[in-house]
């Protein structure tokens, strides 16, 4: 057979990484390189696709009957997919109106069915937390947020590298804008968060009810000054997460 041309040094590394030959350190380096170098990432991807068909030749074996039950129990009850589902739901105005009607009906039913309660001092409302996962790889939290109902403030920390949105030596090319998306799926702007910084954002009274378990907090990439529309993100969603009690 023909020998074929040698692979370039970069492609050799990509193929070795795809094949699984690199030791832990070299593997971590290759992952990091793939994350910042699209050309290298494309080579790795191409090699993964070349080699993947090897898996098709493996003999199928039926797993034990109980495995599906274990999987079902391990599924997270609520996740980004649920938020997206709600967002899609909101898209149709009719569907939105129906949803609101259904929600208010549900509240009415709940109120009617609520048993009489003995008077107790109100427990302090719990702090809500959210880890905003990268929408590019899903595995990395890029921001963490906590809402303190007692102070009516959202504390946000950006885990993004400082200066990452800045042109070399210049001004910020983009900004990260925060949004809250309550159960109705309609986004509300909260303000900007600088890469690597942490800040407490006091919330007006009328927005406080939006900070409830199940509300999503999202960050979008926007031109300096934030989304020109002021009412919805204009750029891509960088990270998203859901508020929940600890």
């Amino acid at each position, binding site marked *: 057979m023909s020998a074929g041309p040698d692979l370039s040094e970069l492609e050799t590394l990509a193929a070795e990484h795809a094949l699984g*030959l690199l030791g*832990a350190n070299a593997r971590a380096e290759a992952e990091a390189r793939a994350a910042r170098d699209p050309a290298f990432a494309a080579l790795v991807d191409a090699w*993964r696709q070349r080699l993947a*068909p090897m898996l*098709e030749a493996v003999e199928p074996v*039926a797993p034990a009957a109980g495995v599906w039950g274990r999987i079902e129990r391990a599924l997270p009850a609520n996740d980004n997919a649920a938020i*997206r589902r709600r967002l899609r739901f909101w898209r149709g105005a009719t569907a939105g109106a129906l949803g609101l009607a259904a929600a208010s009906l549900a509240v009415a039913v709940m109120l009617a069915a609520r048993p009489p309660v003995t008077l107790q001092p109100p427990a302090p409302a719990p702090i809500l937390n959210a880890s905003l996962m990268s929408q590019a790889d899903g595995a990395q939290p890029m921001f963490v947020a906590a809402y303190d109902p007692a102070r009516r403030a959202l504390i946000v920390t950006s885990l993004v590298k400082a200066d990452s949105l800045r042109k070399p030596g210049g001004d910020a090319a983009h900004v990260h804008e925060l949004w809250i998306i309550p159960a109705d799926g309609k986004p509300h702007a909260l303000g900007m968060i600088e890469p690597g910084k942490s800040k407490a954002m006091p919330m007006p009274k009328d927005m406080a009810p939006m900070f409830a378990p199940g509300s999503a907090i999202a960050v979008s990439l926007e031109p300096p000054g934030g989304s020109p529309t002021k009412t919805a993100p204009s750029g891509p969603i960088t990270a998203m997460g859901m508020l929940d009690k600890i």
Partner: protein
Amino acid sequence: MLWAWALAQITVSRRLIVLSSDILAPLMVRIAAGDRLALRELYEATSAKLFGVCLRILSDREEAEDVLQEVYVTVWRRADRFDPARASVTTWISTIARNRAIDRLRARGPLAKADPIEDFEIADDQPDAETRLAAAGDAARLQGCLAELDPRTQAVIRTAFFEGITYEALAQRMGAPLGTVKSWIRRGLARLKGCLER
């Protein structure tokens, strides 16, 4: 401009629907939307295949079942990342299974599966005639191209792929010098690429 926000949200599902002759692809759209029944259907259709992959890599039923569970939970979480333009559903989830199983294998230690590789011990991955006929396009082509390599090179490439072990560990198991094993693999990969591009 609510529509701009909405558009950002539906790009994902649109990407999933576009150009898909893959019969499993519609399931991925439903899974991405949080439909557990769709995940169950995917499990019914693919679990034997993926369990085979996990078992091939780990040689231990219990560990392979743990990994299988992780794989479907990962698919549940990441179904929206599936891109039908880049891979079939089967390839995508088999790759997740392989990566997870190899992570597990590596966690056992660098020389965990230390049986020596016989130079020509490749029988268990040689598809029989039936499998070879059934294997569609890409798989058949890759098998054909691997078969053109000398048996020793085939063996090291397959071992690396199914165990994710380092050159050092491979060399130790082959009882061959590190540099020799490197050159077998590097030459083999270059030839493989040449063959696949023919």
